[in-house]
């Protein structure tokens, strides 16, 4: 068996504070997914309006209505995801999860509050996110306000078992 198995040496990472790269990668995925869904929603509304009224509706980023709808959609996307399960789609992909600062499962109201104060971390050139790098518990400004933290939730041990089980047939093949 060559190389290192995924999850090798990471068995104890589950429950640990998640680092900056995992969180940033999860955020990038979420931005892509939420923007894509929003664009798809607008396209669907445009198509429905065209079918009903016969007029083509154009959307612009400068449009106040679009900005308000986008803000509401982002609040719904992040707020619902964090309030219901502590993780967005991107976080689920990267195997990280929002929990209460003490490690217990997040309360729904904290999830909504986290989504509400999330934009504050972008202010002052994104200084609110610096906490992920330098704060003792890797907590950003919105984490500190909402009383939350982000931890690894994926089971590295299972990943390692999967890797070992996959490598087994090839190892048997090599022996022949």
């Amino acid at each position, binding site marked *: 068996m060559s190389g290192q198995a995924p999850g090798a040496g990471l068995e104890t990472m589950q429950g640990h504070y998640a680092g900056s790269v995992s969180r940033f990668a999860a955020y990038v995925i979420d931005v892509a997914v939420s923007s894509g869904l929003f664009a798809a929603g607008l396209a669907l509304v445009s198509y429905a309006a065209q079918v009903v009224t016969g007029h083509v509706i154009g959307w612009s980023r400068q449009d106040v209505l679009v900005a308000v709808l986008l803000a509401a959609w982002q609040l719904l996307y992040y707020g619902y995801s964090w309030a219901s399960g502590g993780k967005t789609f991107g976080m689920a992909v990267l195997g990280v999860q929002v*929990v*209460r600062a*003490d*490690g217990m*499962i997040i309360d729904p109201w904290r999830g909504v509050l986290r989504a509400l104060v999330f934009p504050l971390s972008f202010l002052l050139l994104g200084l609110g996110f610096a906490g992920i790098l330098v704060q003792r518990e890797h907590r950003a400004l919105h984490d500190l306000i909402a009383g939350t933290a982000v931890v690894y939730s994926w089971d590295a*041990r299972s990943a390692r078992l999967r890797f070992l089980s996959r490598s087994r047939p090839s190892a048997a093949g090599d022996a022949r």
Partner: protein
Amino acid sequence: MPILNGVDPLDGLRRAGKRVTDPLESLAQSVAQHVVELVVHAVDLNALLQQVDLDALLARVDVNEFLARVDVSALLDRVDVNEVLRRVDVDALVAETDLGAVIAQSSGGLATEALDAARSSAVGLDGFVDRWVGRVVRRRHPLPVAPPALLDAADHGGTQA
């Protein structure tokens, strides 16, 4: 016979008999104990057990009936399962048994493999960045690794948050 009301004429005989039988009984018990000890010492139990047909004996035992009487919960309460599992060489178990095939069949395919690889890489990069930030800001004390409620679980192999 009103004068004998409440008096059993055989009571006296019974008491006399009991005075004789009690010592005899204890004497017989002590003799029997000595005899058994002598016989046990005299008999070669190993030779005797070799003559026992264990297969025939076990064939007469109703294992299901026996197991039905066992309180499995009480038995498991006395076993430290975590300690037992800690001693298991999971890598060898997966590599040498069909458990590996079962896991592989039950856990997706290429997508799961890619996900595992992506997550592992991200965790590796997290550690790399964290180490460098620690050097830049000159951290002298180790940081807490997990929230209090998850700390114990994390130390013992982790659990769902």
